[in-house]
C-alpha cells in the first residue's frame, strides 16, 4: 500500500480501454483518447450551451462563452493584426482544447492528456507545419528570406543561415516541451506531496498545506500554459504573415 502511494508517475499511465489494431498499428481507444473526447464534448457544451439564449444582455454562462471568444480575438488582433482574423477558428480551438485538457486534469482521478509529450508535440507540429505552409502560400519562395537576417555581411551568412534555420526548427520542440513539462512536473509534485501527507501521519499537515498552495498554483499554470501555447502560435503566425 505504502509502496503504491509513493509512485507519483502512476497517474500518467496509458490504459487501453478498447484495444484495437490496424495491421501493426495500435489504434486502441485509451484513457488519453477518452479524456480528449471529454474535453471536446465539454468545450462544445460550454460554447453551444452558453450561446443558446443569444440574449442581448448575457447571463453568466453566455458571458463566459463571450469572454473566451473576446480573449482569443483580442490576442490575435494584438499579435497578428487584422490579417490574422481568418485563423481565429484554429487558434480558438487550440486554446480551448488545451485549456480544458489542463483544467480537467485538475479534477481528482482524471487524466491529463497534455502531460504526454506526444500529444503536445503533435499539436506543436501541426502549428509548425501549418505556419510554414501559410508562409509559403502568402510569400512563395520569398518566404525563404525569413532565414536571411538583414544587414549581415555576405560571408557571415554562411554561419547565420544555418543558425536561423535551426532556430526555426526548434519551435515545435520548445513549444511542446514547455506545455508537457509544466503539466507533468506540476502533477508529479502534487502527487509527491500527497504521498508525504499520507506517510507522515499527524505531521502530514505541513505537506498538506503546501499541497493546497500547489493546487492553486497548478490552476494558474494550467491556464498560463494554454495561454502561452496560443500566444506563441500567434507570434509564429505573425512571423509567417509579416516577414521581417
Amino acid at each position, binding site marked *: 500500500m505504502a509502496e503504491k502511494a509513493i509512485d507519483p508517475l502512476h497517474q500518467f499511465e496509458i490504459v487501453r480501454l478498447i484495444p484495437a489494431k490496424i495491421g501493426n498499428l495500435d489504434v486502441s481507444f485509451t484513457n488519453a483518447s477518452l479524456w480528449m473526447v471529454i474535453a471536446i464534448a465539454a468545450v462544445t457544451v460550454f460554447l453551444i450551451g452558453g450561446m443558446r439564449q443569444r440574449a442581448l444582455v448575457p447571463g453568466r454562462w453566455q458571458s463566459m462563452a463571450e469572454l473566451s471568444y473576446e480573449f482569443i480575438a483580442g490576442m490575435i488582433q494584438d499579435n497578428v*493584426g487584422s490579417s490574422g482574423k481568418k485563423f481565429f477558428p484554429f487558434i480558438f480551438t487550440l486554446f480551448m482544447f488545451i485549456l480544458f485538457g489542463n483544467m480537467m486534469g485538475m479534477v481528482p482521478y482524471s487524466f491529463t492528456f497534455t502531460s504526454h509529450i506526444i500529444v503536445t508535440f503533435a499539436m506543436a507540429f501541426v502549428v509548425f507545419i501549418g505556419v510554414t505552409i501559410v508562409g509559403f502560400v502568402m510569400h512563395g519562395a520569398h518566404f525563404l528570406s525569413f532565414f536571411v537576417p538583414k544587414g549581415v555581411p555576405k560571408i557571415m551568412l554562411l554561419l547565420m543561415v*544555418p*543558425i*536561423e534555420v*535551426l*532556430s526555426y*526548427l*526548434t519551435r515545435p*520542440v*520548445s513549444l511542446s*516541451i*514547455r506545455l508537457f*513539462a*509544466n503539466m507533468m512536473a506540476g502533477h508529479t509534485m502534487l502527487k509527491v506531496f500527497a504521498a508525504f501527507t499520507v506517510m507522515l501521519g499527524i505531521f502530514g499537515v505541513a505537506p498538506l498545506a503546501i499541497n493546497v498552495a500547489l493546487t492553486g*498554483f497548478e490552476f*494558474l499554470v494550467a491556464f*498560463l500554459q494554454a495561454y*502561452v501555447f496560443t500566444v506563441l502560435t500567434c507570434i509564429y503566425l505573425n512571423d509567417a504573415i*509579416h*516577414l*521581417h
Partner: protein
Amino acid sequence: MATEPPPPSLDELERRLKQARPEQVGAGADAADRPRAMGMAFRVSVELVSALAVGVGLGWLIDYGLGTGPWGMVVMFFFGAAAGMLNVYRVVEGLGFGRWSKGPAATKEEDRGERG
C-alpha cells in the same frame, strides 16, 4: 479643540503618501509578476535546451545518413547552441530587456509600422 494646531496633515500626508506609494506599487507589482517571471525563466531555459537538442539530433541524423563520423554531431552541436542563444535573445528582446528595444510596447508599435 480650536487650540489644537491647524491641520498640518495635508502637506504631511501628501509627503508620506508620496513616500509610501512607490513602495506599495513596487511590492504589488513584484508579487503579481512573480508567476510571470517564473514562466519567463522557464520559457528561456526550455528555449535554450530544446535548440541544443534539435541541433544534436539533427547532427546525429546527418551522421547516420552520411556516415560522417562524429563531425556532423560536433558541428551541429555548436550550431544548436548558437541557435538556442539566438532564441533566448529574441525572447528577452521581445520583453523589452534587449539592448536596442524601448520596452515591449514601443517595440510592438515600431514593428507594426515597419511591417504593415
